């Protein structure tokens, strides 16, 4: 099977669709055209850059390049987990907690997959390592951002309840336990839904991509199943770590609820 390569003109035609959407937004006063155009431009620039970088890294396989690339991806994903929370911990905490939880979950699971499941030589073969890590980070980032956002906003709304529980002598963990469960759900539901609906409602992008590039569907499916499980594990572990760290930071060493550690960002 041969691949039909796209020309940049083909890509430009696809861009017309987004331009049309922006036009509709302007005409209907949806006030989204600015965001659409900025996001669309970012898509082009970011992906073009990544494409160039990947071309270089794939041509010159070295652990150093893979590690550097992974670090940049982690830094950006950490920033995104922070930026998506309306109420977030102030100082370095929102970024720090997001990044640490991303690192502990995504990197561990990706390493596990590369070493144990795929077993390439060298194990850091960038053609595998970088896309895998990217998918892990992207999904884990969503889970962490959703769950922390939920935890911080519900803690804010229910601060009086939390304090009355503390007044009865409850440990901070107990006083915030229901909110943590709820936040965990919020973070995990997209992943669980994705696992449940995959193949029936949606064909995942990675699998579609492999099929488009000529891999046999059953091979693509095996990869996709592995990816889904890795993503579920990564997002789940990452969310647990983030909620543990985030919830602890809402209380001080005397287990007082310290909501002045949150700031609101619009």
């Amino acid at each position: 099977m041969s691949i039909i390569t796209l020309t940049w003109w083909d890509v430009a035609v696809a861009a017309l669709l987004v331009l049309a959407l922006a036009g509709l937004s302007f005409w209907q006063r949806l006030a989204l055209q600015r965001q659409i155009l900025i996001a669309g431009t970012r898509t082009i620039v970011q992906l073009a850059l990544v494409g160039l970088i990947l071309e270089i890294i794939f041509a010159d396989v070295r652990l150093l390049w893979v590690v550097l690339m992974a670090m940049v991806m982690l830094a950006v994903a950490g920033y995104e987990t922070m930026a998506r929370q309306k109420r977030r911990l102030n100082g370095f905490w929102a970024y720090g907690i997001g990044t640490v939880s991303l690192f502990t979950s995504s990197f561990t699971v990706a390493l596990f997959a590369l070493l144990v499941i795929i077993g390439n030589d060298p194990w850091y073969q960038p053609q595998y390592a970088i896309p895998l890590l990217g998918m892990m980070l992207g999904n884990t980032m969503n889970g962490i951002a959703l769950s922390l956002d939920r935890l911080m906003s519900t803690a804010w709304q229910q601060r009086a309840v939390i304090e009355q529980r503390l007044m009865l002598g409850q440990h901070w963990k107990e006083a915030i336990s229901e909110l943590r469960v709820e936040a965990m759900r919020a973070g995990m539901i997209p992943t669980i839904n994705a696992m449940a609906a995959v193949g029936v409602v949606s064909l995942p992008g990675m699998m579609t991509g492999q099929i488009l590039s000529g891999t046999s569907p059953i091979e693509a499916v095996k990869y996709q199943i592995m990816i889904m499980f890795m993503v579920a594990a990564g997002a789940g572990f990452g969310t647990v770590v983030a909620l543990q760290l985030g919830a602890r930071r809402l209380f001080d060493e005397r287990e007082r609820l310290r909501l002045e550690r949150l700031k609101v960002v619009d």
Partner: protein
Amino acid sequence: MPRLRLQQLVCDRLQPIDLEIGAAEIVCLSGPSGAGKSTLLRAIADLDPHQGEVWLDEQEQASVPAPQWRSRVGMLAADSLWWFDEVRPHFARVEQEWFQMLGFDLHVLDWQVSRLSRGERQRLALLRLLSHTPNALLLDEPSANLDVENTRRVEILIERYRDVQQAPVLWISHDSEQIRRVAQRHCRLEGGHLVIQESNT
């Protein structure tokens, strides 16, 4: 004998406060709204950062893990809030006599919190606090939303608890009649200062 002692307690806008409440003593606290009465109770319960020392018996606040301190120095907030759907899971144990003293039978434990009136919630919040048997009580207007009859019931229960546990009680109240009825001493918070009023004995 449990005794509650504040030593140079500084919280928020308040001047350093020294106060000693003896075993089984009720001290009422009044003052204009915003004077910092609730703030003071919160500092004693260690819910806000503060300076100075608070002692219960020979135990200093900072020397005890915070949850343990708060279960010994029980605070009742002005608005009672609930987190489970039913009343029962909020209670550590059930003392039937106390429920009766506040005009409840034990069926109330199976009620939905959402069905309770404001006054019922307030009385149940007191029972909830007492069910954890604190050694000292910090009460923020425990009868603010209650009618005359229920106000008296609440007062009698608190006095009974105080007698049985020999608990020191710091009680925020705006009702001068009530202060006369229950307090051995009366303090006012004004302009950040704690002023000891008359002795009620």
